[in-house]
């Protein structure tokens, strides 16, 4: 059987509307409410606070959605979400995304490095002077091929 103390505690949490109370406790709470003046007083007091909370919540909501209202917010939400999402790739594409591009990345890097080395060699041979004109310049020139072979 529900005690007045338990009844008060539940009203302190859930307020006056018994539909918010835990379902299994409602029948006992209703019985107590019908038979006890104190229980009725507790509910009347809780109801006063409920009304104030509901009015405050409505006032806040009105101030938040002033202007174009929640409908405008929903339009912005839909547009904003649509702009941010992309359809997830199918499973095969996910595999590709994880493996192949990484390998492809290494291949492209190696290719670029080879091309750069070849270009450097070609340019070096093409523009290398027969004899260095200054000591400092000589240091910057590629080494003659015959020296490397020694």
């Amino acid at each position, binding site marked *: 059987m529900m005690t007045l103390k338990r009844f008060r*505690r539940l009203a302190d949490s859930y307020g006056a509307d018994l539909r918010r109370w835990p379902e299994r406790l409602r029948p006992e709470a209703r019985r107590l409410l019908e038979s006890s003046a104190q229980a009725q007083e507790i509910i009347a007091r809780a109801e006063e606070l409920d009304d104030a909370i509901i009015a405050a919540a409505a006032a806040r909501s009105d101030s938040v959605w002033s202007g174009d209202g929640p409908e405008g917010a929903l339009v912005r939400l839909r547009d904003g979400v649509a702009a941010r*999402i992309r359809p997830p790739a199918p499973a095969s594409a996910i595999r590709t995304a994880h493996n192949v591009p990484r390998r492809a990345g290494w291949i492209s890097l190696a290719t670029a490095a080879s091309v750069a080395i070849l270009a450097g060699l070609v340019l070096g041979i093409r523009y290398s002077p027969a004899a260095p004109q200054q000591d400092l310049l000589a240091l910057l020139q590629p080494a003659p091929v015959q020296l490397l072979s020694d």
Partner: protein
Amino acid sequence: MVREGESEWPGKHGEDSEDAAGLLARSARGDRRAFDELVTRYGPMALRVAARMAPDRQSAEDIAQEAMVRIWRRAEEFDGRRARFTTWLYRIVVNLCIDLRRKPRPVALSEDFDPVDPSAGAAEDMEADERRAALVRAIDELPSGQRAALTLVYDEGLSGAEAAQVLGVSTKAVERLLARARARLRELLTAGHQRSEVGI
């Protein structure tokens, strides 16, 4: 899952869970149209809860958007047999709101803060408005957990057990959060009444 008190309370969270789960499953396969339908159907709920807990409208809209994007990205993780879609959505929105409140932010007053009522003889209305405004501020200042519990149970019509699931705490803990929130608000209301009785 315990769904205490779900049948009677006329909450705003009713969902055809199969429908939501179906839309989500299609979304997980990349069906943008299904996800758009999900946003249309549950976006208002995300916006409503965020608006109750976030400091302003822009933050509320940002939070609702972020929640929906997270759902899209994690759609395939959802298991409709273990939880309801709305519980998941509530949890994401509430957590984002709590995270936002943890971040320090400058306090700015809006331009229409504390407007003066030009009409004469509106003393009673002003008093009621002031009391309501004070209560709104008091709700805003409640600790995150209390505020979330109040929003879920009072505004969204969730049962204590459902709110507990969203917040990841026990039903008893939700009852304690609600009781503390109500005690704080009652204290404020009582103080307001006493001030008006002595003509302050």
